[in-house]
């Protein structure tokens, strides 16, 4: 479990694990799976709120629950940078992890594939495979997006690639 900081790890362990191994095409199995995903997400969110560490909003974009959208943010130098968040549940899920996209940041950083898919650490894939089907969306966010934001946003801000919305607004105003 190397490759992540201790807070991430402790948080991860507190997220309830999933049990059903079913993909979007598995019908009832998928529904069952989806329920577990929701439970995990609820637990993760409430946990974050309790620690005053709320950093995303997410909801299913379609009734099948194969596409998810939402927002994520990061506080840097007392300024909150917010980005759109979206991803699809792959067909081979849960064997394959979902590819989280931040479309607003597409082309602004090297740590990103085309279409705004974030590059995860080399440790992510093996860990995910090892914990299939116990890891779900909540785990993917916790292990993938949260460290990515913590690592990339300060650099992007400092290099001026992204600007705070207030600054953007003020500059556009003027």
């Amino acid at each position, binding site marked *: 479990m190397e490759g992540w900081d201790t807070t991430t790890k402790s948080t991860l362990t507190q997220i309830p694990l999933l049990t059903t191994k079913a993909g979007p095409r598995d019908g009832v199995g998928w529904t069952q799976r989806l329920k577990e995903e929701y439970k995990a997400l*609820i637990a993760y969110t409430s946990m974050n*709120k*309790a*620690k*005053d560490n709320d950093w995303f909003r*997410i909801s299913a974009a379609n009734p099948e629950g194969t596409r998810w959208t939402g927002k994520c943010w990061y506080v840097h130098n007392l300024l909150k940078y917010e980005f759109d968040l979206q991803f699809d549940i792959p067909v081979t899920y849960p064997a394959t992890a979902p590819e989280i996209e931040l479309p607003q940041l597409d082309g602004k950083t090297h740590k990103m594939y085309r279409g705004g898919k974030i590059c995860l650490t080399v440790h992510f894939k093996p860990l995910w495979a090892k914990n299939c089907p116990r890891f779900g969306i909540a785990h993917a966010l916790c292990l993938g997006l949260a460290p990515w934001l913590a690592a990339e946003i300060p650099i992007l801000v400092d290099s001026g690639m992204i600007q705070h919305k207030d600054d953007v607004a003020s500059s556009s105003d003027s």
Partner: protein
Amino acid sequence: MDEELLELQRQLEFAQQAKSSIRLSDRNVVELVQKLQELQIIDFDLLHTVSGKEYITPERLRIEMVSEIKKLGRVSLIYLADTTGVDLYYVEKQSQVIVSDDPGLMLIYGEIISSFYWDTVAEEINERLQECSQIALAEIAAQLQVGSELVASVLESRLGTLVKGRLEGGQLYTPAYVARVNAMVRGAARAITVPTNLTALWNSLQQLLQETDGATGVAVDNSFFQSLFNGLIKEGEVFGSLRAGVHWTPTIFATAQKDTVDSFFSQNSFISYNALHKLGIIQPVQYLQSRYPEGIPLVTIFVHPSMIEMLDASVDDAIERNSWIDSLSVLPTLFGSQDASKILSLCPSVQLALKSHRAAILGESYVLSDGFIKDVFHHLEKEMQKFWIPGSSSSGLHDNNNLNKAGKIRNDSSTLSELNESGTEGGSSRSGSEKGSKKKKERSQGSARASANETDLDKQESLPTKSKKNQKKGKGALSIQVSRAKTTKEDSVGIPSEEWMLDNILSLVPEFEEQGINDPEIILKPLANHLRPMLLASWSERRKALFAENADRMKCVLDNLQKKLDESFLNMQLYEKALDLFVDDQSTSVALHRHLLRTTAASMVDMLLLNLDMHNKLKDGIEVEESQNPESVSLSPGDRINLAKDLPGSLSVKAVALAESLEGKRVETFITALGAVAEESGLLLKKLDKKLERTLLHSYRKELIWQVSTEADPVLLLPKVVSLLYLKIHNKALQAPGRATSAAVSRLKDKLDEPAYKILMDYHSATVTLLALMSAATNDDEDCTSDRILSKRELLESLMPALKGLVLGTSQSQDPN
């Protein structure tokens, strides 16, 4: 759509909508607190923990620390800093406050220790102490991990209360143990009767303790013994004096020492330092002087003034009686010669006598009165005169003998002296004295002394093989003496040898023999050395006087000699001339030469030698009594050679040659030898001149005529007649022996007329037969030979007038009668 799924969707929505709790970060809190402090809302000191997560007030910290101290009794500050989580700095600060507030606490080496902790420790120690009877502080200190001084200071306040024992030299002892050791020390201290080094004593006690305690016995420090001992002295349990902390002299010993010295000194009125050393008194002089201020310290002995009085009386007596005294014989045997000389110098009578030159101290211990010395001196002087006055030949012999004898004595004495005293000292002092007194003999004795020193060395090296060496040395010494005898004879006639003096002094004062013979160094040598210069002075004075006296006589002798020599030499020359007549007749010539040498020349040489000898002696300052008439003396050839050899230097050689020429056959050699001697001795030889010759011949002729006319013996008449005839005919004085007479007569044949010659021949033949008969007669009274001698004699007597007439007649106009 599943109900449950929708419900979950809603729940997620709700959860996401819910207000998140607000949390402050540590940093924010710190900032807040700082803000509060800035705003003076928090107006007291606030400490923070090492972790930085907590704030704590000093009061709280103090309370926590105190509770910790109360709980443990002994807490290190580091431990406190750890438990409270506050920086050590604040803990230290607070601990100082705590300790100053509470007298029962102490802060030592970063530890806070409460008194009740010490109490418990003391109790523990006490328990152990009662078990083991003694514990080392260092052990305790190591156990408690504190300094032993601290332990000592803490325990001292609890000794006797919590800890029942005694602290001594870094060790804790129980009273019982202390009492036991104290008893040991007291026993040992009381048992000591001689001065002792206490350290040694303690060591033995320690050994004893270890033996009795077995392996468990712990080493007791020496200082423990010492302090116990000091306590015993203070309490008066043992008596004595302690020097330098370790040298213990028991009173018993000091008293015994004092008593011994007192009793010896009061009984004998002296005491030797050696004795004091044996008694253990290291500085005897100071000790004695402080005890007996009236006493007198000598070199090896301390004496009471009464001793001086006693010595003074006997010395005074000796001086009064013009005698001598060996102070050593009066003083106790322990006295050395140095002591004797020192005590003598303190005697008032000796001082007085020395000042007024009435006595002399010789050989350190001998006092000789002036009268005694003078007496000896006069004796010696007389001896010397007696000894040196006889003629030089005999004196030489005597000298040799004496030297040999003296040398023997010297050998003996020197060996003995070396036995008695350490050789180097004696040797050096002797050689020193020799140097002083024998400057004149230095040269001659140099070699002798060197070899003597060598033998001295030998002797020192090998005392056991003495006898052998002695013999060897005897030989060596003999040769030395021979050489010395020669030299003394040559260059220092009349200077008495040391040995001779020693001998004479011994014979004069036989008492010396009893004491001094063993070691002449003691008195004889010094006395001899003392007398020597005086003797030499008087001797040289006498010699000077004699010399002056002899000068006149020498002149007289020389004058006499010259006169006599002139006379006889002229005669000699006269006779020599006559020899020319017989040059052609070899045998007669030889006989004549020899005759002349035997008669005239011999007596002349004798006279010359005797006079030269006498002159020589006078020159040396030897008194020579008026010698007998030198002419009357006739010497044998041996005597002549001896005399000639006694003469000094080159004269001796020439005189010997002269004496030998007498034995030769040629008058000419004799004459040249005589000339050489005369030249050497400053005499003149008168040459014969015509005028002198004539007068001499004339007087000779007159004398001959007178002799012939008065001659009654027919035998003796013939040579005189012949001489007279020669004088008349050849005008030469002939001295012919009887054997040469016939040749002389036959020579006259052509000079005389027939009858006169015939008378002469007849008389001659008659004389020859008479002499032949007389020599043949050999004293046995045979009638016929004596008759014939008688008849011949009568015949000769009848012829005598004719013969007389023959010579006398020529002068008296040929008278037939």
